[in-house]
């Protein structure tokens, strides 16, 4: 990270379109989930405009589903804020992990691209940053993010009309798409002994937090333990 060639660290149309193309397959699944959300929201009593607007403005599926549990003739503000924040808190970690590269962009671009940061494009762009493919990484973050955003909105809208045909995405294994995708992202990284110990620590911590700590704390617990192990365990060789 110390010797970043700033000429490579910029947005380009070429890498943007390449990011868009890379994310078309997974975006189809994003759209199916959007449709499931559209259906669930209309069944909860949201009007069509609110449902689509929510997908466009929030763009974070799990928290949108979570908010439906609070929806009635009235919505309690504090529980809503706590729920949405807790479910989306992993974005804080994503932003922090991208900071070493994003700090070289001007604030407008830095915060602009984070508006479409989501699990999948974050994970894939981080891999590219680590391979020092900076332009490609930014293309994935922005192009991939915008693609998923468009499909998420379109899927939500379609769900208002055709949602009943996918009322149970779980039966078709569709709830596993994002998890399986993220798993392949983990496995693409380097797998030396040090990394495996870090992952092991993160896995144990996250499972324990999932079982015994408040809801939604498991990602933070795993990230904290993994990060601390990263400081404690010395790297075998330094690439410079």
């Amino acid at each position: 990270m110390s010797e970043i060639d700033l000429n490579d660290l910029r947005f380009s149309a070429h890498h943007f379109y390449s990011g868009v193309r890379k994310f078309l397959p997974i975006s189809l699944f994003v759209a199916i989930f959007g449709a499931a959300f559209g259906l669930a929201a209309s069944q909860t009593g949201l009007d069509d405009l609110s449902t689509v607007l929510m997908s466009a403005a929030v763009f974070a599926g799990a928290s949108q589903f979570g908010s439906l549990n609070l929806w009635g003739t009235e919505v309690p503000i504090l529980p809503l804020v706590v729920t949405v924040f807790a479910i989306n808190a992993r974005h804080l970690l994503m932003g922090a992990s991208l900071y070493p590269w994003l700090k070289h962009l001007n604030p407008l671009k830095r915060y602009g691209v984070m508006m479409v940061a989501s699990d999948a494009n974050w994970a894939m762009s981080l891999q590219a940053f680590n391979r020092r493919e900076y332009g490609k990484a930014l293309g994935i973050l922005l192009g991939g993010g915008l693609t998923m955003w468009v499909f998420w909105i379109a899927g939500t809208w379609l769900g208002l009309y055709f949602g009943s045909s996918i009322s149970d995405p779980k039966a078709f294994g569709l709830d596993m798409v994002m998890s399986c995708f993220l798993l392949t992202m983990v496995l693409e990284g380097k797998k030396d002994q040090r990394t495996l110990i870090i992952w092991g620590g993160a896995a144990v911590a996250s499972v324990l937090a999932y079982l015994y700590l408040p809801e939604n704390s498991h990602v933070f617990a795993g990230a904290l333990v993994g990060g601390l192990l990263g400081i404690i365990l010395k790297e075998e060789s330094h690439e410079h």
Partner: protein
Amino acid sequence: MSIETAGTGALFVILIMALVTLVTRWGGVFVMSFVPINHKVQQFIAAMSGSVLVAIIAPLFIQGDMGAKLALAMTAIFALTTKRPLTAIALGIAMAAVTRQMDIY
């Protein structure tokens, strides 16, 4: 305190959700701009980012239903042996679907 969802109330609820989510998307980058990036911080961040993914997946593998477990196992095996991530993901999903169709789910 509550917001009525009739009329413009719903839009206000959505606005709150959008702002809270934006805080999470911007907050990590913002906070890091006050943290001096030394070697230890770099190592923490590098180890943390992979750990985030592991921490999302691990509880799902332990606590999920058989379909979820087999899907992740299938994806892991294929991703490691074939280096074809899309195939690995597709097989994982198929595995979950088949398991759940067969099971008393």
